């Protein structure tokens, strides 16, 4: 009888190719992941069970948080997505407030995610390093009183800039601190409504299922 020979195969598998693929994917994900930027105004957003995501482009975010320096007052930060839109918005703001920004400053401004200073002090902020600029409590917030309503102008000009460049309507997101009292949020909503922006998003965190 012929003996059946069991061929002994090595149990080791060549992992090289698998390793290659794994690292290729890893590199891809690391590079596409957007690094979380430090926020100049940290806010604790309330959570909700709603699962819709924010749009990624043509979005202006208005952050409403507590003023670190002064008690019982709020500070408002403004930011818009897209570098071209930011630049154009600054141009329009400069025209409105009769200020001038150099080309270099415009380029620098296009990199700033969100800011909270009166437009007159903007050049100072632009000249700073982002780590210094984004220290909590350093930027006082955009004036939004009835005497000097710069926030309204920012909103208005950002909308114009978006429609000029992207030919789209600008979406608005309100990112409020959970402990903020309602009138301060209402003030911003009213400002948007005065410009006939009646649809906007409220940024929230994710809440557990069994809430």
């Amino acid at each position, binding site marked *: 009888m012929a003996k059946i020979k069991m061929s002994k195969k090595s149990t*080791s598998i060549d992992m090289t190719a698998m390793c290659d693929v794994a690292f290729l994917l*890893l590199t891809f994900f690391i590079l*596409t992941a957007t690094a979380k930027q430090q926020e100049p105004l940290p806010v604790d957003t309330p959570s*909700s069970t709603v*699962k*819709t995501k924010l749009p990624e482009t043509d979005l202006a975010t208005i952050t409403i948080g507590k003023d670190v320096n002064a008690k019982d007052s709020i500070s408002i930060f403004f930011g818009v997505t897209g570098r071209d839109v930011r630049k154009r918005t600054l141009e329009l703001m400069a025209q409105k407030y009769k200020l001038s920004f150099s080309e270099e400053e415009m380029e620098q401004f296009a990199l700033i995610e969100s800011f909270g200073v009166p437009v007159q002090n903007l050049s100072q902020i632009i000249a700073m390093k982002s780590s210094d600029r984004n220290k909590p409590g350093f930027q006082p917030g955009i004036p939004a009183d009835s005497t000097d309503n710069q926030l309204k102008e920012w909103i208005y000009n950002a909308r114009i800039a978006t429609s000029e460049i992207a030919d789209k309507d600008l979406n608005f997101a309100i990112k409020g601190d*959970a402990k903020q009292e309602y009138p301060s949020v209402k003030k911003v909503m009213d400002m948007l409504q005065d410009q*006939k922006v009646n649809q906007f998003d409220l*940024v929230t965190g994710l809440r557990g299922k069994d*809430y």
Partner: protein
Amino acid sequence: MAELNTESGGDKGGKVRSKKSNAKVDLTAMVDLAFLLITFFMLTTSLSKPQAMNLGLPDKGDEKTDEKDIKVDQKRTMTILLGDDNKIKWFHGLLEAPEPNGKPTDATYGKNGIRKELVKRVKSVAEYCASKQGSKPGDGLIVIIKPSKKSTYRNIVDILDEMAITDVPTYAIVNDFTPEEKKLIEEK
């Protein structure tokens, strides 16, 4: 582990041989690590996007329209007053003449608070509307949310979230308080 011993058996003859080190490196641990990191980056890139709640408000419109005030059945309206310290007062119908079981009551946010009342009323009002003559399909409970000056942003988001969870057909945020409602929300 995955690599079996491929070295040849013990040396015979006592000759001094330079030891041939195995050219293969065990990549298992490295692949494990790589996949762990991939998983991490994959999940964080899609999950880190902030959530958002869409809110549409009615047009303010300065210009006067000829619209007549639409009369709404008081049995369909439920008013929720948001007070300070995360307190809620609610009533069903008119404040002066509330519906049965609809007198002004305190409530809390969450599963065991206002949600129970909302679910109950969404159901009962939908049945009431279906049985009533002359009502359009889709008519149901109307919730009027009145946030007081002392209520927080968290309260607003929480109550809007409740609206989404309980599928309230119509709801609105109203900022005008009648003197009676003001008294109600300010009393302890």
